[in-house]
C-alpha cells in the first residue's frame, strides 16, 4: 500500500474487470521488428487502425547487422522482417527510426536517451527487457505479441496487478564492482524465479548513488529474477539526465513536470508484499558459470556443489571448479544491458595502453548511434583502436545472435549481455555473463581475470 508502484499503476487504471484483470492505460508502446509483424497482421484481419499512433515508436534492432548498415541486409529473412516493420509503420502512421537513421539503436537504449521514457509513465514493448525503462521511474514491462496488438488497438492492456517487492542495497560499492555485478549478485540470491509475480522497487543508498547508465543496467535485469519489471524512484540524477533531451518537456512544461516527478516516491508508511535488504560490501565482481543468469558467483569463488549437472555438462565445467585463468574465445560488449557510454568508458579504462589478447575475438557494439557519437566525441574509439579493438555499428548483435554475430559451438564468450541460456549467442555457444570491466579484463588477458587486478 502507498508504494510508488501503486501510485503509478493506480493512476493508469481505466477499469477493473470483476474477478479479472485490470484494464491499464499505456503511455508508450515501443515496437521492434521481431515481435510486431503478427500484431499488425491482427489489426489488418480485424480491419482496425492503431488507436493512438502518436504514442507508438518503432525501430529495428534485433536483426540489424553491426557492419555495413548502409548496404542491404544479406540474410533475406532478416531483411524481410526489417522491411516489414518499416512498411507497417508507414501503413499505420507510426514514427519509425530505420537502419542508418541517426535515431536508431536498441530500443531500450534509444527510449531513455531521446527522452521518450519519462518518470510516472506506463511503458510496454514486445520484449522482456522493457524493464530497462524502469530506471527512469516508470512502470515498464515486457509483453507478448497478442498484448502488443491489444495496445495498438486500444492503448490499453489487460493485466493482473503484480505484487510489490522492495530490494534495498545499502553502502558503498567497492572498486571494480559495477551495477552489473549488483544485478548478477541479486540474481544469484533470488534465482531466476525469485521475483516472479512481483514488481521490484530498487532503493537504498547504493542504488541512489548509481548513475543513470548503472540504473538502466540494473532495471534491465529485473526480468532475469523473474520480476515483471523493476524501477527506481526518480531523483535529481534522473531529472539531470532527462533535461534537454529531444522529447523531454521544455520551458514551463519542464518545471511543471519536475514538480510532479518529485512526488513520485513510496510513502514513508508504504507496505510492500516483500522486502529484501542487501549490503553493498558483500558484492564482488561476478561471473556466471551455468545456463541461466541466476547461476552466478563472485569471480574468485568456485562452482557450487549443488549446481545443475545438465548446465555444467553444457558449459564444460565441473563442480568446485574455479574459473580464473580459464581460456576465453570471444568477448562481447554491448546489448540493452551494457551498451551505453559508461560501459564503453569502463571497458576502455582497462583496455587503455594494453593489447587485445591473441586468440580472442572481441565485438564492441554500441547500443545506439548516439552512443557511438559519444564514444567518438570522447576519443574512446582511438584508445580502443590502439589496443586492437574495433567498434561496430549499433544493434542487439551477439546478445541473441539473430544477425551474423554468432558465437560458434563450444566456444567460451565473456559477455556483458543478459542471458546465458543454452544456444543464446549461437547454437552450442557457451556464455559467461559479466560486467564491462570483467569483459575487458578477459579481452586483454585471454583468460577469465579478476578486473580488480587491472584497475
Amino acid at each position, binding site marked *: 500500500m502507498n508504494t510508488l508502484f501503486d501510485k503509478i499503476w493506480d493512476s493508469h487504471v*481505466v*477499469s477493473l*474487470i*470483476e*474477478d*479479472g*484483470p485490470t*484494464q491499464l*492505460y499505456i503511455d508508450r508502446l515501443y515496437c521492434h521488428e*521481431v*515481435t510486431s*509483424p*503478427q500484431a499488425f*497482421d491482427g489489426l489488418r484481419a*480485424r480491419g482496425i487502425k492503431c*488507436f493512438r499512433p502518436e504514442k507508438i515508436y518503432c525501430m529495428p534492432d*534485433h*536483426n540489424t547487422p553491426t557492419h555495413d548498415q548502409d548496404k542491404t541486409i544479406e540474410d533475406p*529473412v*532478416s531483411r*524481410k*522482417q526489417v522491411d516489414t516493420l518499416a512498411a507497417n509503420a508507414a501503413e499505420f502512421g507510426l514514427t519509425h527510426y530505420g537502419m542508418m537513421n541517426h535515431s536508431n539503436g536498441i530500443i531500450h537504449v534509444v527510449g531513455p536517451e531521446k527522452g521518450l521514457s519519462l518518470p510516472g509513465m506506463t511503458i510496454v514493448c*514486445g520484449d*522482456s527487457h*522493457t524493464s530497462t525503462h524502469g530506471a527512469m521511474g516508470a512502470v515498464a514491462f*515486457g*509483453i*507478448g*505479441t*497478442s*498484448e502488443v496488438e*491489444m495496445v495498438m*488497438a*486500444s*492503448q*490499453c492492456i*489487460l*493485466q*493482473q496487478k*503484480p505484487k510489490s517487492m522492495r530490494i534495498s542495497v545499502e553502502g558503498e560499492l567497492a572498486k571494480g564492482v559495477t551495477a552489473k555485478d549488483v544485478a548478477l549478485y541479486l540474481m544469484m540470491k533470488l534465482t*531466476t*524465479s525469485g521475483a*516472479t509475480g512481483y514488481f521490484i522497487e530498487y532503493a537504498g543508498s547504493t542504488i541512489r548513488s548509481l548513475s543513470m547508465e548503472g540504473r538502466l543496467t540494473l532495471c534491465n535485469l529485473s526480468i*532475469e529474477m*523473474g520480476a*515483471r519489471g523493476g524501477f527506481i524512484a526518480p531523483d535529481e540524477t534522473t531529472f539531470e539526465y532527462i533535461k534537454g533531451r529531444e522529447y523531454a518537456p521544455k520551458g514551463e512544461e519542464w518545471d511543471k513536470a519536475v514538480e510532479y516527478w518529485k512526488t513520485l516516491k513510496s510513502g514513508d508508511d508504504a507496505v510492500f508484499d516483500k522486502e529484501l535488504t542487501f549490503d553493498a560490501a558483500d558484492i564482488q565482481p561476478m561471473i556466471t558459470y551455468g545456463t*541461466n543468469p541466476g547461476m552466478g558467483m563472485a569471480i574468485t569463488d568456485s562452482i557450487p556443489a549443488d549446481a*545443475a549437472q*545438465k548446465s555444467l555438462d553444457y558449459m564444460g565445467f565441473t563442480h568446485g571448479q574455479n574459473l580464473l585463468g580459464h581460456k576465453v574465445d570471444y568477448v562481447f560488449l554491448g546489448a540493452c544491458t551494457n551498451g551505453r557510454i559508461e560501459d564503453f568508458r569502463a571497458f576502455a579504462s582497462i583496455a587503455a595502453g594494453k593489447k587485445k589478447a591473441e586468440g580472442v575475438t572481441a565485438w564492441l557494439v554500441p547500443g545506439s548511434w548516439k552512443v557511438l557519437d559519444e564514444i567518438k566525441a570522447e576519443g574512446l574509439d582511438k584508445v580502443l583502436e590502439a589496443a586492437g579493438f574495433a567498434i561496430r555499428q549499433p544493434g542487439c548483435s551477439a546478445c*541473441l*545472435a*539473430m544477425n551474423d554475430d554468432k558465437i560458434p*559451438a563450444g566456444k567460451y564468450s565473456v559477455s556483458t549481455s543478459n*542471458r546465458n*541460456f*543454452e*544456444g*543464446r549467442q549461437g*547454437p*552450442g555457444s557457451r556464455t559467461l555473463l559479466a560486467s564491462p570491466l570483467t569483459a575487458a579484463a578477459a579481452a586483454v588477458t585471454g583468460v577469465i581475470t579478476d578486473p580488480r587486478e587491472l584497475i
Partner: protein
Amino acid sequence: MKQKFDIIQSTCVPLPLENVDTDQIIPARFLKATTRDEKFFGDNLFRDWRYDKEDNPKKDFVFNTPAFSAAPSEGVHQILVAGKNFGSGSSREHAAWAIAGYGFRVVISSFFADIHKNNELNNFVLPVAVSEAFLAELFASIAADSDCQVKVDVPNQTVTNLATGSSEHFEINGYKKYCLMNALDDIDYLLEQKSKIEAYENK
C-alpha cells in the same frame, strides 16, 4: 487458434526439467518469421533439444522416444508436463505459438514465468499450476505408465491424475475462464471499451 475449453482428458508428455526458458522452447533464429504460422513454430518446438546439427532427431529427447513420439490428437499427448519455472526469459510469444502449433492444449507445471503464462492464455493453451507434490507424483505416474491420463476440468477448475486419483484445484480468474470457455480474446473485449478509454484520456 481460438478453441473453446471444457474438459480435456489426455495422456501426457513429460519434460522433468526446471527453468525451461523460452530460448529452448523456440530458439531465436526461428523468430524471423513475419506470419503466425503455427505449423512452422510447432515443427521447431524445442528444436535444439529435439534435433542435432544435421537435423537428425536426438534419440534421448522425450519427443523422439517410442512412448511419446506420437503427435498430439484427441486424448493423446495433449498435455505437456514440465518442471518448475516453465517459460522463463524472453517474452517471445513464438514460444506459445510453438506449443500450440505442436498440438499441446494444456501445460502443467508447479510454477510458470509471468509473461509466458499470459502468452499461453492468449493463444488458448491453458497453463495449470499445481503443487510440487502433485507434479512429482504425476511424473512418477507417467514414468510407471506412459499411457497414464490426466483430466483437466476447466469449469470446475480441477486437475486429476487418473492413475492415482489425486486431484487439485487450479487458479484462473473468472474473466479468463469465461474467455477460454467461449473462445473470446482480450482484444474482442477491449474494442468494446472505447468510450471508457476516451473518458480516461480526457480526465
